[in-house]
């Protein structure tokens, strides 16, 4: 029963290995990858139900007792994130079938895709800080390959920068783990938390906390460390961009959330104050980028940065309500960013350009695409019946209650600019007079639209079902705001 936790990690691993053997047989690759990603969604759903009914699920690998072996821990937050990851992976996979092209498919696109999912699911589920590093590396290695696969000039150039930044941040992660190990002498997350609360977070632990913020901030693109993201995410094809934008930065955000609620919650004045300032600046730079560009990809890429700032502002406020808001917003943002990246992938494919000044009038030929984009754009900005609303309300309200009027005001104001940036795309691309686009081959727009349309429908349902989902989300927030629940679940006698 408990070994259920490992299924969302094991399924992509085995699928990736099997797919290596069928690299030239594309129909078989597609069949196997669809079946196993469906299995992954089902197992993640089953895991989430199990966590909801029976509380936190833990699994000690090879039956070694908790602090000594590697423990996999699935609380409500990780179960929800694993479920969202599996759904998004399925959608991106179906989109890839028609858009990625033979030359990439026959060179291990699908195996690497599954290794990426393996790394992400593993990072969400692990209960060991060094194991988290290893899953980060699995994820990053797969993302290097996905980024460069195809080998165009822009991909080569941007991959060099992306690898360099991530090699440095991985080295910093190793250094941070080494420092933490020398202070607490353990690697199990629950045990680290227990030891830190025994010594009451002396100055050196605060230094390590800032070090971890530096490491995960590079992965998750927070304010002074986001510089690599706009260029790197610009290079790959649409489904890869959707996987990156929806999932990779969110692993960094999840890691900050985990470490700052489980380890470093004793001296919140310094660490969480720093996180709060950085998250507000992240929102500001993201918004500036989003309204500055007239390029569809760049606008959505800068919206990724805005969302990271909003989520981390909720984490920095550190009340149960704001954490619930962050979890709400995190899941909403993963779904809607995947949908938006896939939608602009279709737009770029139809028009052959990504500059909005060269587009116009697409609504006459592609009305379904236009209205899906419109709903997704409203959901991104957080218009009430849609998905972005509930999370932002909770974050803003708890920000106001804790007296941070500036921060809450900037979060509110950022919605306006986000709405402006995506409406700028909508108005310029879909309205106006139609233009003639040079197309070498017809675009299978109807087929490609299916995946982002389903994701947008999920976002709408997620917004409408806020009331029903609230107990699940608040369960996740309860575990985050009471580390004892997590510790007791892992280190049971």
């Amino acid at each position, binding site marked *: 029963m408990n070994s259920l936790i490992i299924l969302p990690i094991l399924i992509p691993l085995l699928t990736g290995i099997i797919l290596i053997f069928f690299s030239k047989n594309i129909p078989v690759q597609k069949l196997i990858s669809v079946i196993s990603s469906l299995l992954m969604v089902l197992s993640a759903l089953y895991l989430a139900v199990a966590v909801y009914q029976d509380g936190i699920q833990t699994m000690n690998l090879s039956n070694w007792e908790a602090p000594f072996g590697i423990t996999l821990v699935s609380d409500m937050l990780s179960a929800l994130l694993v479920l969202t990851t599996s759904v998004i992976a399925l959608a991106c996979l179906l989109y890839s079938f028609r858009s990625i092209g033979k030359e990439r498919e026959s060179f291990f696109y699908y195996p690497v895709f599954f290794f990426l999912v393996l790394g992400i699911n593993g990072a969400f589920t692990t209960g060991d800080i*060094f194991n988290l*590093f*290893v899953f980060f*590396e699995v994820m*990053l*290695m797969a993302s*290097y*390959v996905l980024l*460069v696969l195809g*080998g*165009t*000039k*822009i991909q*080569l*150039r941007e*991959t*060099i920068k992306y*690898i*360099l930044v991530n*090699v*440095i941040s*991985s*080295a910093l992660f*190793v*250094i941070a*783990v*080494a*420092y933490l*190990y*020398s202070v607490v002498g353990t*690697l199990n997350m629950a045990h680290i938390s227990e030891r830190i609360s025994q010594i009451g977070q002396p100055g050196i632990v605060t230094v390590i906390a800032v070090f971890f913020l530096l490491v995960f901030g590079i992965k998750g693109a927070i304010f002074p460390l986001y510089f690599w993201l706009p260029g790197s995410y*610009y290079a790959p094809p649409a489904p890869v961009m959707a996987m990156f934008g929806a999932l990779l930065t969110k692993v960094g955000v999840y890691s900050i959330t985990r470490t700052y609620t489980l380890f470093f919650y004793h001296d919140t004045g310094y660490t969480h104050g720093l996180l709060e300032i950085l998250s507000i600046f992240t929102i500001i730079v993201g918004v500036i980028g989003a309204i500055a560009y007239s*390029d569809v*990809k*760049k606008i959505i890429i800068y919206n990724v940065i805005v969302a990271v700032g909003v989520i981390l502002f909720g984490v920095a406020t550190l009340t149960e309500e704001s954490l619930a808001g962050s979890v709400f917003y995190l899941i909403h943002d993963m779904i809607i960013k995947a949908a938006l990246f896939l939608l602009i992938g279709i737009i770029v494919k139809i028009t052959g350009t*990504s*500059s909005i000044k060269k587009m116009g009038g697409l609504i006459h030929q592609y009305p379904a695409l236009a209205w899906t984009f419109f709903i997704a754009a409203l959901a991104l900005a957080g218009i009430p019946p849609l998905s972005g609303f509930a999370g932002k309300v909770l974050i803003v309200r708890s920000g106001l209650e804790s007296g941070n009027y500036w921060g809450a005001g900037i979060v509110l104001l950022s919605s306006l600019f986000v709405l402006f940036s995506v409406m700028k795309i909508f108005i310029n691309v879909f309205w106006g007079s139609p233009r003639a686009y040079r197309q070498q081959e017809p675009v299978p727009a109807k087929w490609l639209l299916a995946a982002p349309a389903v994701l947008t429908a999920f976002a709408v349902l997620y917004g409408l079902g806020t009331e029903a989902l609230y107990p699940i989300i608040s369960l996740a927030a309860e575990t985050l705001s009471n580390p004892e629940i997590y510790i007791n679940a892992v280190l049971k006698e």
Partner: protein
Amino acid sequence: MEILMAFLIGILFMSATYLMLSKSLLRIIVGTGLLSHGAHLLILTMGGLKRGAAPLLGQHAEAYADPLPQALILTAIVISFGVTAFFLVLAYRAYQELGTDNMDRMRGKEGNE
């Protein structure tokens, strides 16, 4: 002993930072190599450098060296091997395609080839 190692690791980090800020891609990759050396030595040092036998049970010693940092280093070494090999091949491909190893000339125009 730990003090001495701390200085050595500091010098490694310093050289790595200096090399990674240079223009040539190969010097940057040499810098990442030095950075990972520094990180691995740091794990070893932070695990403690007390005297003890090698962590082999056949030694029947009073005290052993801490085996955990050694396992962590071994993991980190193979990971950085993999990444460095990929990075070197990528640099080679980039040199063939782009015809330069100067990071200044790899900037590209805004948002296109």
